[in-house]
């Protein structure tokens, strides 16, 4: 039996996404997932929830360096190798409408950016904030360690700038971020992006759209097969 609004699919398919603002594959994976949901016949019955993950939690709060310089220093990567890697990802991103501008991308501690995502979630603006932060990081070259920049982005999305600044200054949403990290640990997540469909099936990484479509289809079939 196929799901209907009165059947097992009445509840939305929930996709839980763990990602970090400075993760270039998370930007791509998020875009590809959205494409897959748009193509999915039951896309209106899909809810995407975002969860915090930090790739560089030890990076000094408030500081920012060019990401390429950080990669070169941290991993000893030759510039040519970095540029080749970026070119490959930029080409994939362009296919999904993303405009990666890696030379201006900054490495930061993303804890405060995650506070903004949780603030936005409290105002039903979570997806818009995630999108805006990714674009700010990878296209606009903004310094997301700067509280003024983050508050401006919140205001741009219609949130209260003063509330955003207060959330940053009071280190709000710490408990929510801890819960996201704890859940990631429980699930054994060691890299992002990471996508969990209905708390049952998972996709690791920015995979081709076909894989996300497969995940949606199988999850929908799970719903239809489960007792009402």
């Amino acid at each position: 039996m196929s799901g209907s609004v009165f059947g097992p699919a009445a509840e939305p398919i929930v996709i839980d996404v763990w990602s970090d603002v400075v993760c270039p594959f998370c930007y791509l994976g998020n875009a590809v997932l959205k494409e897959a949901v748009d193509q999915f016949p039951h896309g209106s019955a899909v809810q995407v929830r975002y969860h915090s993950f930090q790739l560089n939690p030890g990076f000094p709060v408030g500081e920012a360096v060019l990401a390429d310089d950080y990669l070169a220093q941290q991993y000893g990567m030759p510039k040519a190798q970095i540029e080749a890697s970026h070119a490959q990802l930029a080409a994939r991103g362009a296919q999904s409408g993303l405009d990666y501008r890696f030379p201006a991308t900054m490495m930061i501690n993303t804890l405060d950016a995650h506070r903004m995502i949780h603030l936005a979630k409290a105002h039903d603006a979570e997806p818009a904030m995630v999108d805006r932060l990714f674009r700010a990081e990878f296209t606009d070259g903004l310094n997301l360690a700067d509280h003024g920049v983050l508050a401006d982005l919140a205001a741009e999305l219609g949130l209260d700038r003063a509330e955003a600044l207060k959330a940053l200054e009071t280190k709000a949403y710490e408990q929510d971020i801890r819960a996201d990290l704890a859940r990631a640990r429980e699930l054994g997540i060691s890299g992002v992006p990471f996508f969990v469909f209905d708390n049952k099936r998972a996709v690791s990484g920015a995979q081709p759209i076909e894989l996300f479509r497969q995940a949606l289809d199988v999850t929908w079939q799970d719903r239809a097969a489960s007792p009402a």
Partner: protein
Amino acid sequence: MQSSNVVEDDTQVEAEAAEPAPAPLIMLETPDDSGVCAVDGWCD
């Protein structure tokens, strides 16, 4: 609604103690292991 707790160390957030393990996830098979940024910050 925002949580308002404050912590002293603002450099990173440690995960809280894990609750009982959930059912293992069913991983969809991927073409390769690329497209992931690992916890050490390395992206491949």
